[in-house]
């Protein structure tokens, strides 16, 4: 069986037309210069699959840079029966195993560093940053959230907020002076930003049936400030964002960052709930308002199906879980007093009225 082929010797770019013969042990051909070349079947390697015209290119382990270009692809079927390693890719640059293992180790250790070290580092860095900077960051965060919304500044309501905050702040004595504001937004929500900034959404005040319920949520946010959670979370998210974006690129990097943010925020919520209960006991407000509020939120979640979201994907533990924890830890103060007087509560409800 003979075929015409083009041979390139791998030393110069000249083409040599040769007639290739199959022998017992391999392929044999004679160059125009008279040089005889034989490539054993065991050494044959296919450079690329045949193209649409059936042209394919061979090389040999004994002459790695030489090429034999054959246009008859029935030959390929024949060579497949004779050359056992024809389709092995061992002539390509080897994936340098050591390098791949070394860098994989590097990546894994860096990822571990981000998951295990960044939380610790964020605490250290958080304490090293001057308070005035933290407050500035907090203002920026609040401004971003409040973009396009109105701050509620009713005089009576503002006084009521101050009345509610003062005993809780005295009981907890956070590192930052608290600045609590109400945002004219329908969302049932509240959050603490770095630097003692706390924002309560009007929707939450509307949804509450008593001042004690609002006080429960406020105590929870103040507890976050006491534990410096907002500052640490900001540093942690920023740190992991730098890392993941560099390694994974934009979109996947953001997903990785979110996972880290979520993972730690759940521990923080549980810690904040515990501290909030202590604050509520010390101020004589008690935890029944907080419990009642979470109970109603649980009903809403069950109705809307939100309780079926896997708990590791939410920043807050399911309210049902939190409710059970609150009720289990229920310690009532000896003398219970309402968080606000009836008149103050009425003022707070009307804080956003213009």
């Amino acid at each position, binding site marked *: 069986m003979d075929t015409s082929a083009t041979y*390139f010797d791998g*030393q110069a770019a000249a083409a040599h037309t040769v007639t290739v013969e199959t022998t017992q042990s391999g392929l044999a051909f004679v160059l125009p210069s008279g040089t005889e070349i034989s490539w054993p079947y065991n050494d044959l390697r296919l450079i690329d699959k045949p193209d649409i015209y059936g042209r394919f290119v061979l090389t040999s382990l004994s002459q790695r840079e030489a090429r034999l270009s054959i246009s008859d692809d029935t030959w390929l079927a024949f060579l497949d029966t004779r050359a056992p390693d024809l389709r092995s890719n061992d002539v390509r*640059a080897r994936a*340098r195993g050591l390098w791949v293992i070394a860098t994989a180790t590097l990546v894994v250790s860096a990822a571990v560093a981000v998951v295990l070290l960044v939380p610790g580092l964020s605490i250290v860095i958080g304490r090293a940053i001057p308070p005035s900077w933290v407050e500035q960051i907090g203002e920026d965060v609040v401004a971003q959230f409040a973009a396009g919304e109105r701050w509620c500044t009713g005089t009576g309501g503002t006084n009521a907020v101050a009345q509610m905050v003062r005993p809780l702040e005295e009981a907890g004595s956070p590192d930052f002076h608290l600045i609590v504001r109400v945002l004219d937004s329908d969302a049932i929500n509240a959050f603490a930003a770095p630097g003692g900034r706390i924002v309560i959404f009007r929707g939450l005040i509307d949804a509450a049936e008593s001042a004690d319920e609002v006080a429960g949520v406020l105590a929870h946010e103040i507890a976050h400030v006491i534990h410096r959670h907002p500052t640490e979370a900001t540093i942690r998210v920023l740190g992991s964002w*730098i890392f993941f974006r*560099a390694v994974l690129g934009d979109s996947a990097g953001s997903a990785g960052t979110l996972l880290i943010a979520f993972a730690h925020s759940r521990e923080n919520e549980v810690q904040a709930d515990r501290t909030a209960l202590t604050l509520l006991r010390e101020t004589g407000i008690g935890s029944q308002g907080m419990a009642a509020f979470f109970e109603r939120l649980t009903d809403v979640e069950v109705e809307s199906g939100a309780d079926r979201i896997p708990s590791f994907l939410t920043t807050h533990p399911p309210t049902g879980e939190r409710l059970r924890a609150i009720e289990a830890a229920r310690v009532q103060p000896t003398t219970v007093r309402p968080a606000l007087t009836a008149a103050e509560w009425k003022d707070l409800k009307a804080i956003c009225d213009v």
Partner: protein
Amino acid sequence: MSDQAAAIDERAPFSFVGDMGPLFGLVVVNALLTIVTLGIYRFWARTRVRRFLWRNMRLLGEPFEYSGVGSELFVGFLIVVFIVLLPLGIVNALAQFLIQGDVGAILFNMAYYLVILFLIGVGLYRARRYRLTRTTWRGIRANQTGAGKQYAIRYVGYTILQGITLGWFTPAKNVRLWDFRLANTWFGNARFKYARGGEGLYRTFAICWFLLIPTLGISFLWYKARELRTLTAKTSYEKTQFELDVTAGRLAWLVIPNALITIFTVGLGAPFAQWRTARFLAIYLRARGTPDFSAIEQDLRARPQFGEGLADGFNLGGV
């Protein structure tokens, strides 16, 4: 019979024989694997697409060969992540905290973008070196000499001049960078040559510059076609002269659909754009001359072990 001094005078010495079908399967599998691996597979995906494009491109009937492997790109990228991107990200984040005042922030940003621009220049040049050293035709390898930082210094300087002159430096920049790249491009033991000049471009550029706003930027395609024709016509290799038969219309039909394909597939369809570019080159790139193939010997220069980390880190694209 050996074609020791074969004349290249065919009308189309290049041909591209790759069909869209096999590429489609490749792109779908690549996209799925890239998503599943959070993007890490992209280096192997890119390698498979290149192997497809290279082996289907032929010169004088012989296919090109792409000999790179995915792990070279992966390791190249990791090295850049740890010695360039992470430090850069940390410096930038720290600066946001530490630099107070507008003047400080502006000065920092200028320095920061200058560094990025320089690294982009290095990245583009080194990525080109990697691709050339992984390109083989008739068993002979290509290569690129010249230091990345030399190219990057020019790249940064020319880009700044381009901005200061409201774009009027563009022809000079493109001619000079093309000259630098070509004079450092080797196939085997012989290098490409660029005949100096290209000043004639300025007449076309002036007309197109003034028409830029009335034509909503389309006049730039007219200039770009003229520039590509001129640069290619002044390029030679071993007594072989090149010619790119491109017009503004042909260029528009190449780059506008390519941009749309890439945008609407969020980059996953970029191989189709590359496929169209390969076909475009096979049709319009001509060569004429009598190279002495037996005198073109194997390239024995050093080749980089890993590749394209910087280019990938800055999303510089390319094939």
